């Protein structure tokens, strides 16, 4: 199954949760936020949010900005 993570197509196992994808980045979870298909998913729901094919996932964190 493929999902689009931060703009890049990424293969994930069927039934993968958002939590798995976030953890896969290897940067922990603190200071992160995520959206699936342009809807916010609170961190408390990441492990219960099962992704489906072609989901658009945005995983975001702090960057310098004015």
């Amino acid at each position, binding site marked *: 199954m493929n999902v689009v993570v931060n703009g890049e197509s990424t293969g994930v196992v069927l039934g993968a949760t958002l939590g798995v994808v976030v953890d896969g980045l290897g940067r922990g979870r603190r200071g992160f936020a*995520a959206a699936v298909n342009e809807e916010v998913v609170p961190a408390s729901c990441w492990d219960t949010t099962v992704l489906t094919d072609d989901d658009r996932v945005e995983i975001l964190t702090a960057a310098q900005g004015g």
Partner: protein
Amino acid sequence: MGTGGATSLDALEAALRASGTAVATVALRRVDVDSRGSLLDVLTRVGVRLLPNTAGCFTAREAVLTAQLAREAFNTDWIKLEVIGDDVTLLPDPVELLDAAETLVDDGFAVLAYTNDDPVTARRLAQLGCAAVMPLGSPIGSGLGIRNPHNIALIVEQASVPVVLDAGIGTASDAALAMELGCDAVLVASAVTRAQDPARMAAAMRHAVEAGYHARHAGRIPRRWHAVRSTPQQGAPKLTTIDLGAP
């Protein structure tokens, strides 16, 4: 202080400390798996409060979503709301801005709205329930200072919420002027982070804000067309035998 534009996290940390700021803005961007160092660690270490922004959003919808994501990421209701109209001027789009502000205020955010220097738009933002209005002095990063002090003064005159001058500051005297016009604070990013010596410019800004704040409250002398002596002529000696007088 804004955190954009710094060449390194070390330079940023030094500037933040020198500025004495209580608040630092951050943007929300895709996780960069290759990046070293953590901006959040720096900000935590310095002890500033986070103010996430919605930089780069062109529509109310994008800005609202960004604000909601920021709330999740940083656990704060504060949001610096930016909704810009184009890529060249980076000026706020008042319609999308007001739309987003209304949605976010209803959603419980403390909205600090980056706006142009139009007094009517600023008043509308305040009436919608924004926590602060942040009029620009001139376009972001232009360093042109406060192009229209008259408008900033009009905004302050009718403000029911704090006014924070945002964008356009190039140097310390610009920041002092903002405070003299009655602003409650000043937000600077590029002026500090892109200066040749960011920490020193940050210190300059700290002094400038103090200076302008005290000057505002000290009651300045009026502007006069002609001169007014600071040294009285009374008691002036007569040191010429011929009285020359003034022409």
